[in-house]
């Protein structure tokens, strides 16, 4: 671990002050005001999605390599005939999706989906020799909590509670002018991804009312209760924690007044596009679509959303579990893309996936796979340069150059590059990218070009 850097970052996570920005040589907001609308939507697959079964080479040699390590007897084999094929325009090889990706396959072929192959947390470009020499290794590889953090904060040298979504929000918040609506909205609770140095995410529940109970009504008792509750929040206080508690509740109530009518009111343009039965991700993305529909009312030019789906930690019984989960992802993300089309903002909304880590290409006993590293991810939207594969697909050979053990792929592309590409599309200037992706200058390519 690089100690000087570690201490630098510790200062940031601990104090979260403006002063910490001096680390990047920047002392003031740099984003220009914007006239257009853009939104980024992060779909986080908690537990570590097995990308090796999400995207499989469909050419004869490629599939043979896959089948050699993951034969039918492993319990996690996807048959060649089951693959939903697509031919990335960026190369000659044919690939196939997991059979659950029924709706994203045609979207890929129509150029709305790009594949980012073998991406993962890195401090700097890394060779297998570097890994074996323990040079530049991200901390706590293969650990859920640490790798979730590193995906969310694009920082693999030391624990930081500031996420790259939050830093991106810090960077572009001036574009939203005086809008009361925060830049980031999480429909999936407090997450590191959305915590900035200056900005804090709005968290909205995935279902039900976002607002206070028991305050609507005109009878004397309800009126007295409502008036009293608000009076309690307005009482001046000199205790730090009491004041913070009151402010948090007051802010939440004020924002709920703006947001709740949007997320709980049926929207005839987008609602019917989602099938939310047994699909929590669709429920969350439906709320995102309702919010985007009202972007004009909210007065925002840039929005970042965080949604999630869990259960991908498939050490055993992977075949059924992953099929179920990927079916939900496929339906929810495709529905969401269609909703952006219906709203006329398909070219202004980009959805992207993240997950704890990839999983071992070598099968684990019990029909599963174990924690690994590099993984394949999808970027969806009208602005995406799709039907293409970015990064470099790993050689599906155990103990090959891409494998650091049991089929754990050494990433060819970093989370920093992934984040920086999306940040560039969002309007962050190249020179300012380190504010969002701290290690980006260690990589030659700062914009992967997928959007």
């Amino acid at each position, binding site marked *: 671990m690089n*100690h000087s850097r570690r201490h630098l970052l510790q200062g940031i996570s601990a104090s979260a002050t403006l002063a910490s920005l001096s680390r990047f040589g920047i002392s003031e907001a740099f984003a220009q005001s914007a006239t257009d609308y853009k939104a980024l939507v992060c779909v986080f697959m908690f537990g570590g999605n097995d990308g090796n079964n999400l995207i499989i080479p469909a050419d004869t040699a490629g599939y043979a390599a896959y089948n050699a390590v993951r034969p039918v007897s492993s319990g996690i084999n996807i048959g060649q005939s089951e693959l939903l094929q697509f031919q990335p325009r960026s190369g000659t090889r044919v690939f196939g999706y997991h059979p659950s990706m029924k709706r994203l396959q045609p979207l890929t072929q129509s150029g709305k989906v790009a594949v980012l192959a073998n991406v993962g947390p890195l401090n700097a470009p890394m060779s297998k020799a570097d890994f074996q020499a323990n040079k530049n290794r991200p901390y706590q590889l293969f650990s859920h909590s640490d790798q979730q953090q590193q995906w969310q904060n694009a920082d693999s040298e030391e624990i930081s509670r500031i996420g790259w979504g939050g830093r991106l929000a810090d960077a572009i918040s001036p574009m939203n002018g005086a809008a009361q609506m925060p830049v980031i909205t999480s429909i999936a609770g*407090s997450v590191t991804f959305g915590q900035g140095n200056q900005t804090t995410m709005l968290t909205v529940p995935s279902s039900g009312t976002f607002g206070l*109970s028991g305050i609507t009504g005109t009878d004397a008792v309800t009126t*007295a209760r409502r008036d009293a509750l608000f009076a309690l929040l307005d009482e001046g206080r000199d205790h730090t924690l009491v004041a913070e508690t009151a402010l*948090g509740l007051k802010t939440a109530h004020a924002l709920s007044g703006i947001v709740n009518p949007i997320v709980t009111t049926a929207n005839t343009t987008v609602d019917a596009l989602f099938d939310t039965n047994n699909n929590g991700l669709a429920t969350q993305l439906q709320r995102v679509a309702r919010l985007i529909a009202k972007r004009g009312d909210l007065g925002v030019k840039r929005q970042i959303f965080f949604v999630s789906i869990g259960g991908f930690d498939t050490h055993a019984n992977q075949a059924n579990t992953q099929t179920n989960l990927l079916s939900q992802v496929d339906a929810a993300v495709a529905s969401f893309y269609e909703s952006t089309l219906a709203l006329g903002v398909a070219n202004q909304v980009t959805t992207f996936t993240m997950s704890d880590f990839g999983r071992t290409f070598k099968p684990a006993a*019990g029909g599963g796979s174990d924690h690994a590293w590099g993984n394949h991810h999808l970027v969806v939207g009208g602005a995406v340069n799709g039907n293409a594969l970015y990064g470099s697909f790993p050689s599906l050979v155990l*103990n090959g150059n891409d494998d650091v053990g049991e089929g754990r792929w050494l990433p060819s592309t970093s989370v920093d590059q992934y984040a920086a590409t999306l940040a560039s599309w969002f309007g962050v200037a190249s020179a300012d990218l380190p504010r969002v992706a701290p290690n980006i200058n260690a990589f030659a390519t700062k914009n992967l070009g997928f959007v």
Partner: protein
Amino acid sequence: MRCCVSSLYSRAVARVARIALLLPVVLSAQALAQASPDATIVEFYLAPQNKYFLTSKPSEWAVLDGLSANGWRRTGLTYAAYSGEADPAAKPVCRFFHPGVVTHFYSIDPAECALLRSLPRDFVDEGVAWYAYPPAVNASEPSGKSCASSNTALFRTFNNGAIANNGPANHRYFGDYTFYQTYSAKGYALEGLAMCLPQTSVEKRADAARLLFQATFGARPDDIATVTNTGTTAWIDQQLNLPPSQYTPRDWVPNTRPDTCVNTSTPPLTPTSYCQRDNYTLYLPQKEFFQQAINNPDQLRQRVAWALSQFFVTSGVDVGQAYGMIDYQQMLRDEAFGNFKTLLTKVTLHGAMGRFLDMANNQKPDAARGIEPNENYARELMQLFSLGLYQLNNDGSYKRDTKGVALDAYTQEDVEDLAHVMTGWTYPTVPGQPSRTVNPNNNKGYMEERAQYHEFAEKTVLGKRIASNLSQSQRLNAALDAIFVHPNVAPFVSKFLIQHLVTGDPSPSYIDRVAKVFQNNGGGIRGDLKAVVRAVLTDIEARGAAKWAPSYGHLSEPVLKLTRLARAMNTTTDGVYFRGATASAAQNVFYAPSVFNYYPPDYSLSKSGVLAPEFAIYNTSTALARVNTIYATVYSNIQPDATVLGATGTQFNLSSYTSIAADSNALLDRMNEVLFAGRMTAATRATIKKAVDAVAATDAVGRVRMALFLSASAPDSQVLR
């Protein structure tokens, strides 16, 4: 009154203040039974000059209350005292006025009073201010003196008038030691313990209520009297000696759920009707957690075990089968007041932790297979369970090199060597199954040695040699000893317990005092958690008069928020309702999102930098959910859950409130004690009273619900202090 004219700093006051520190301390001979105080000392503040003034004379209160236009106001702080020699141990406090500096000085020391009387040109003798008790010499206390635990220790600070923004020279006195210490950073001299003041029954009941916030899952209406009748220290000792509540144990189940193990709602309800829920989720231990936290007497043990479960985190995210989590949580209860080394050993070897952090079946290096030992547990053991990332002084501050850079507590080599030393442990053998070299998943009980998978090479952990000729378990023990004796452990563990029980941003001196007890319980034992917990709760920064430091205390975490309300409502419950109510409030019991817990101990507020761990999960969604959960609980009737065998539902017994509900002032007095520990502000009281009065006096339940909902929702009650 001669207190209202500005003046410059006078050397005389400083000189007297210095002399006072050198004067011999009078030993007090306080009677065991103290008289009830009959005087109130009120603190006034003159904002334009930053001056503080204490008086117990109602005639002077009237004068100063009439000078509000000049900037005089009450700070809200009051203390109890005697107007005369109420009992033989009470002594007069002399009051002097220094016209040059325009400040008052108070002393209980006869020699100090005599000295000032000998300086009539500098000091005007204003007679006896009130009566109080002299401090006793006590070398073990921070100031070298102490007061009886039933008294308020009043500390003196001095602003010499030469510090920017502090205004002219002035003394300020503090009954809150935490607040007193914070004045050092403002440039005030901390002049030590000035006198001991009696406490009113209201003050004692407020301290008892605060103790209940710190040491239990909330105060039941009768608990406050129990604590005051027993005495705080005796009550703590009673709690430390109660036997642990028991989770209902469950038998091992296979890792993969059999297809026959499903949930069926078809009657009749049998113990296996909800096979999947009861075995493959943590529904039952969650339910029992609330049932026992709300109903059972061993409150302190359960509260500390709950804190420990957020220190030695295992989570249903990975350890999702009830039988294992029950066994692990019971172990934390059983060991909560034992020795930290024993606890560390049991945590390390428990099958639930073995699974959660991958120590189970972690094998020695195998070049042929390309296997290296998993470092997950070795790293978290040091980073989260014992040492932290940086070397600590005993007061919890970082040790730094000459350039000011914090020093790492351990190296990557320590992690790797420790990981090697910890190889060769497999899951406990499943009852009724043969023992295997690599046992299948079993999260109940303790892991077993498999020497063939243990790395016996000599290693060095934290500078301690782990010899190759020791047995596997001896090598593990040697490594845990190397951690246990590390100087970080005492402040690291002490600070965590203080943060969870008392205050989120404890003073360095508080950490230091508790850490010293961790090092030595007084009988030469290191790591005695019973002594450590007692030290946390009996410390001067936990007990005594109301706490006024501006960041004292902590936000009640979602679980505590709800159990506190339940106990205030005199609830009897089977726990079903409460497990459901917290599951959606960012604190799903035993399902922390990761080993980093629901919230980290080092989370700080971005604006003030104050450490405030619970605020890491306080967001727009949970802020509303907290209040809505209070509303749902207060205004609901909770029926037994038909899917739970033996369900009894939840009953509230509000009779101690409904019986006085017609008198809204009496009702608010009860709320102030049970939910605010006496810290309901006048404005909050007026606000809630108005709403209670809006409910017809004949609707006793309606009034009580209004009072409970608003009191539990009030920001002053959501923060425990």
